[in-house]
């Protein structure tokens, strides 16, 4: 006998309502998420070249790439102009050309100050400090701002209820906040705020040039087989001391207002050498470790004290004991933002980097961690660079394995930069025509070995992925040899577009310090950019906007397309673009006025992009940085290999963005310039 018939009926009714409610929820979720059961995995391999890939596949060295090509398709992937990584990845991220996302180069020009700055992110100072004697207390913290414009495709996925994991996507520092997780990649600074500055300590400083690009060389004293020195950290925003200049003026009896400087934070370290044992003991803060000669350390925590006991800045570095005797030589990697206690926002959510650190151990967090600058500057040898590069690769591989094992997102992106960095630095071993060619039987095959390593990673991915998951392997650009450098500013000087204040100081003054802007009509800055000295935009602009501007653009375009290298009669430039004419979007007028697409074998020289004027227009490139891609974008497409059929013959990066959205049934916004290129398995 049912004592509560009414209640039971009412319960049944409640159950029905609940069932209906749940059904509605599920339906709503399905509509919201498009195809909620769909998964897409993208392996982003910076700098993988289609011709090299095909050649290594043909040699039978890349079985996993071959299998994926046979299962789906392979096409060269059209890249952006200029084909520089920040530009190309920004196009993949937003589906827009540089006119939309506003990234035209690694370096942009601030026309008001006529200075160069990083195109990817900028730091903003904290609030006005309260100064008490030598102490200074900022009223609010500083901030960093991502300069890339436009919505990322994983934000669009998030708007449809889809979760993404985006591991080290370039030009994503600080990472955008979207459902899921993200760790920043290229563009992430080291603890000093630079894109990676190594330190080198030696007791024979005179053997080295005064300045090495991308690092600092310190002189140390070797006394009783011990070296005492300091690691140089960021400036301490809590301290201030009168500048030496102010003190000097005061000492001379001049009435000046004291200017203050923030001191650099340092961490002392000691190295006890035992040449007989072929090893040395290091004491860095609380950490003690031993390295043998020619050995790399694991990650060493390095702390800088801003306010004793209360505020410390944590970082991490790797030490390489290059030589004990007869000369002491020690390389210290750029000081990384410690992922366990990041002082800048390198992940979203902010705790994710710490979580990854707990799972994987400390890892490189800076921009591009393969230390090309140390190799290019002669601080590391090619083999030492190779070892360091493989360490980075192994770290990324462990991360990939972890992310695949713990996959719970709809979209996964994992970035590898080693092929790109290796192709830049090892090309001259492979290419006998290269002016910097060096015979090394092992490194001759170095680039191929890196492709094989990537192939093994692809194999690991294919092994664990569900066959219904869309797998996309892509690169942002390909590669070409960098035989000859073009001093574009020297050419502009010779042609009368630039006038120098002191023509005898051409090579010695950087950042256009020698340019007479009142008699200069155009200048080159960055790797592919050419700017007019435009009235109203540049600080001392003289070119009138409108007809004069257009005529000058036409003139430069034609003259550069006709530019020939007198040494071999090769055309040095094969493509010229005008962003204002050829790009789309609100940022198209905020970049260079012209983009120079160099021909095969050519690239902007080392000096010209920094505002210097060497004597010759054309120079041989004899540096270890021997492969490049900052040329005519049609010559260096990237790759697209996928387990789906590619429906277009010439897909581009912008198309791939649309294709990823389409895989989830999401219609792309109107400002995306690409079209769908993948035949979906719907």
């Amino acid at each position, binding site marked *: 006998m049912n004592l509560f018939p009414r209640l039971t009926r009412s319960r049944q009714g409640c159950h029905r309502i609940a069932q209906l409610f749940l059904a509605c929820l599920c339906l709503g979720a399905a509509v919201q998420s498009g195809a909620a059961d769909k998964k897409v995995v993208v392996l982003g391999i910076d700098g993988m070249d289609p011709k090299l890939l095909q050649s290594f596949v043909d040699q039978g060295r890349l079985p996993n790439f071959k299998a994926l090509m046979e299962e789906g398709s392979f096409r060269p992937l059209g890249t952006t102009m200029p084909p520089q990584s920040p530009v190309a990845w920004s196009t993949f991220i937003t589906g827009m050309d540089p006119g939309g996302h506003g990234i035209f180069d690694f370096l942009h020009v601030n026309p008001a100050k006529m200075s160069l700055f990083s195109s990817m992110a900028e730091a903003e100072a904290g609030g006005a400090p309260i100064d008490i004697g030598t102490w200074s207390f900022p009223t609010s913290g500083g901030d960093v701002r991502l300069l890339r414009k436009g919505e990322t495709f994983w934000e669009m996925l998030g708007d449809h209820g889809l979760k993404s994991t985006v591991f080290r996507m370039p030009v994503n520092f600080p990472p955008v906040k979207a459902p899921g997780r993200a760790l920043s990649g290229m563009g992430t600074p080291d603890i000093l705020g630079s894109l990676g500055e190594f330190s080198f300590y030696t007791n024979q400083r005179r053997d080295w040039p005064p300045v090495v690009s991308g690092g600092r060389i310190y002189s140390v004293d070797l006394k*009783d087989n011990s070296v005492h020195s300091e690691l140089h950290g960021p400036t301490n925003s809590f301290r201030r001391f009168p500048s030496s200049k102010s003190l000097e003026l005061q000492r001379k009896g001049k009435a000046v207002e004291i200017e203050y400087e923030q001191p650099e934070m340092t961490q002392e370290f000691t190295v*006890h050498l035992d040449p007989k044992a072929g090893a040395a*003991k290091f004491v860095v803060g609380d950490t003690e470790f*031993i390295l043998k000669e020619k050995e790399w350390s694991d990650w060493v925590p390095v702390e800088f004290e801003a306010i004793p006991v209360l505020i410390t800045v944590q970082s991490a570095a790797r030490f390489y004991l290059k030589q004990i005797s007869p000369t002491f030589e020690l390389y210290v990697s750029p000081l990384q933002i410690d992922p366990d206690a990041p002082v800048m926002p390198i992940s979203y959510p902010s705790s994710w980097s710490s979580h990854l650190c707990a799972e994987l151990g400390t890892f490189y967090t800076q921009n591009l961690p393969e230390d090309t600058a140390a190799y290019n500057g002669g601080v590391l040898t090619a083999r030492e660079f190779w070892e360091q590069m493989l360490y980075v690769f192994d770290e990324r591989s462990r991360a990939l394995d972890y992310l695949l094992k713990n996959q719970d997102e709809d979209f996964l992106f994992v970035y590898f930069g080693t092929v790109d960095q290796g192709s830049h630095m090892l090309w001259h071993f492979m290419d006998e025509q290269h002016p910097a060619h060096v015979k090394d039987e092992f490194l001759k095959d170095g680039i191929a070995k890196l492709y094989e390593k990537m192939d093994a990673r692809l194999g690991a991915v294919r092994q664990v992925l569900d066959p219904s998951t869309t797998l996309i392997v892509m690169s942002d650009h390909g590669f070409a040899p960098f035989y000859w450098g073009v001093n574009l500013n020297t050419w502009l000087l010779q042609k009368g577009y630039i006038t120098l204040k002191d023509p005898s100081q051409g090579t010695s003054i950087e950042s256009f310090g020698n340019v007479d802007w009142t008699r200069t009509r155009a200048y080159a800055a960055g790797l592919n950019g050419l700017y007019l000295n435009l009235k109203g935009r540049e600080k001392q602009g003289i070119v009138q906007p409108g007809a004069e501007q257009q005529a000058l653009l036409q003139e430069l375009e034609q003259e550069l397309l006709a530019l020939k290298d007198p040494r071999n009669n090769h055309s040095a430039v094969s493509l010229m673009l005008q962003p204002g004419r050829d790009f789309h979007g609100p940022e198209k007028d905020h970049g260079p006025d012209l983009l120079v697409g160099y021909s095969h074998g050519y690239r902007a020289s080392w000096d010209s992009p920094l505002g210097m004027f060497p004597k010759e227009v054309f120079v041989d490139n004899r540096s270890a940085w021997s492969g490049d891609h900052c040329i005519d974008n049609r010559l260096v497409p990237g790759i697209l290999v996928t387990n789906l059929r590619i429906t277009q013959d010439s897909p581009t990066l912008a198309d791939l963005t649309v294709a990823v959205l389409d895989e989830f049934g999401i219609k792309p916004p109107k400002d995306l310039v690409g079209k769908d290129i993948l035949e979906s398995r719907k």
Partner: protein
Amino acid sequence: MTSLVSIYNSTFTLVFGWVYTATKWLGAMGSLVALSFLGGILMVWIFGKVSNQDAIKATRNRMNAELIALRLFKDDLRIFFRIQKEILLWTLKYLKHSMIPMVIIMLPVMAILIQLNLHYAVGPLEIGKQALVKVILRDAKTLEPGTEISLQARDSLAIETQGVRIPENREISWRVRGVAADRFDLVVTAGKDSVSKHMAVGGAREGVSSLRTGEHWLTNLLYPAEAPIPPESAIESIEVLYPALPLSFFGWGMDWMIVFFVLSMVFGFAFKGTLGVQI
């Protein structure tokens, strides 16, 4: 003195080891909470025994009375300042009554901290990870060429470098790497002198002693797990730079010493009434 310290060390370490073992099943954080509870109760009980409870009670009562008076006469500045003076004097009297018991309590607290350090500070060397074995010699001359100094270990611990000699610190150090889970004695030989030190590689999470020393009886007190190195030995101490043992509470990393101090005080104050102790 050294032999007295040895007897104390072995006895107290054994007794504390029993207590620790009884709480070990609670896990790292659970056992620390339990030991903090026992420590807190013990401290309050000792405080009750070594302090003049009547005087403390009378002082506190007087302080409370003065505080009430302060509220009553807050409008009369002359009385207000006189009461302030009284409060200050009674506070000083209270400090006088509690200072000596506090100093006495420091001794058992130190003894407990030394034991807790043994169980919570550092753990075995993980397999595949590196550590240093750091040996301090009594005389830097031992490091001069001619005296052979060696480190011997089982195959479960790889010795990766030759000993790095640092005469200015009277030190020789080796880099080692964990190969397989094991518990054994390292042997350091300097000339004709050999000294062993317990070594732990891999295996279960447990506290280990990082230092065996013969430096001074006070240092021996701080590292009670292993017998002091005899003073006639050429070797003063052997230290293994083990990794710190992680301690977390709901995923938050914590320092065992802070956890012990906070919890033992919380438990002590919570149970002072039950124990009938005036603090």
